[in-house]
């Protein structure tokens, strides 16, 4: 970061004022992605608003219904906190697979989704859990369903002048079971070539299967369908693969061709659906 000005507001009001006034500006949260992209010569933002000095953004708060993750909560805390592990295990699992433990200590929950990359692990869990993103600007605050948040390739619904303040994640429904599967074609801590978070929610003999897919389309994808009482596990898996096939649109890169990623996307979906249903059947 040789070029670039850094502003260090001490209140949310100061931060949102800066974000509104400055033209080419970015929030500096954990800073890991920003540092990497700058070093790679891919990011040339002039002004950064460092939000580390603003109180309250590191809080992790639990209510009877949900968990609210402050924007500066490190990914590793979502992975390891006993409350997230108990109440939103699919989120703890997905957050725990991002990058490596050391980067997860620094990278922030808000910055992760602001990055908006289609290969990120945490969004796959956030979409199945129907999380809500809290945004603040000088004009006030608003909430966006995370399922509407990732709008296009590397694009999110964060508008100029806004910053993410928190993510609220509903507790996993009683009796539900979940699984997160990440397929890697390069190193253990690399981006996935395909990933799938699955939440199986039983209700009146039916099982709702919610799926969040990563890396197999230009954005994180959310899909859901019902397993009816007459379907066995194999039929449920085939239904999941059919619906997943309909959205797969992988981007070829060094992690594999489009057909390779689609193939591994099917493997991830099958493993995650089978694992979730097997756990349900043990209950």
């Amino acid at each position, binding site marked *: *970061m*040789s070029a*670039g*000005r*850094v502003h260090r507001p001490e209140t949310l009001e100061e931060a949102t004022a800066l974000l509104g006034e400055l033209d080419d500006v970015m929030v500096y949260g954990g*800073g*890991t992605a920003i*540092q*990497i992209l700058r*070093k*790679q010569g891919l990011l040339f933002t002039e002004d950064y608003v*460092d939000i*580390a000095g603003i109180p309250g953004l590191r809080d992790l708060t639990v209510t009877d219904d949900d968990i609210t993750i402050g924007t500066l909560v490190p990914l*590793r805390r979502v992975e*390891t906190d006993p409350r997230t592990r108990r109440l939103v295990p699919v989120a703890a699992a997905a957050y725990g697979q991002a*990058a*490596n*433990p*050391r*980067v997860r*200590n*620094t990278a922030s929950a808000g910055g992760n989704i602001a990055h908006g990359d289609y290969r990120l692990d945490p969004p796959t869990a956030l979409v199945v859990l129907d999380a809500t993103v809290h945004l603040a600007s000088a004009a006030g605050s608003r909430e966006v369903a995370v399922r509407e948040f990732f709008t296009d390739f590397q694009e999110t619904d964060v508008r100029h002048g806004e910053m993410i303040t928190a993510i609220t994640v509903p507790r996993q429904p009683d009796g539900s079971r979940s699984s997160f599967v990440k397929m890697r074609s390069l*190193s*253990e*801590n690399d981006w996935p070539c395909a990933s799938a978070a699955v939440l199986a929610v039983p209700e009146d003999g039916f099982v709702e299967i919610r799926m969040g897919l990563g890396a197999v389309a230009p954005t994180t994808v959310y899909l859901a369908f019902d397993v009816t009482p007459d379907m066995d596990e194999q039929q449920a898996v085939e239904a999941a693969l059919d619906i997943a096939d309909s959205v797969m649109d992988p981007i070829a890169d060094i992690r594999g061709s489009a057909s390779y990623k689609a193939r591994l996307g099917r493997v991830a979906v099958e493993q995650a659906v089978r694992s979730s249903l097997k756990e349900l059947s043990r209950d």
Partner: protein
Amino acid sequence: MNEITLDVNGTPHKVAVEDTTLLLDALRRRVGVTSAREGCGVGACGACTVLAEGRSVSSCLAVAVRYDGTPLTTADGLPEDDPVVSSFVDSDAMQCGYCIPGFVLMTKELLSENPSPNDEEVSDHLEGNICRCATYPEIIKAVRLAAKRSAT
């Protein structure tokens, strides 16, 4: 410029840094710590690892001003009889040694959270550290030995 205090291995160092100075550069150029090294520069190899309040940080991705007054541990601040340090030495867990401070500090963090990790947990925690000499089998042995020594 910002005047900050880097608390390195219990010793405060007053240093002047730019807004954008990386913690790695502040430690090496201002404080004189050379056990934190630049490898990949993007958080993937672990050679620049330091502990901040006991938690591992890639100092190549961290700005120094964020660590004003934060207790930092670098590998050279550990005594020779530290169970992790002595276990790495006794296990011949190094050839060139460039990456080893990072492995040692990641092991300190792992054992503080999980005093008796299994091999999978060791691999999971050290997966973001790369050794070009491929001394991995000895590194795993060193971590196992360090867990034993730390328990006694």
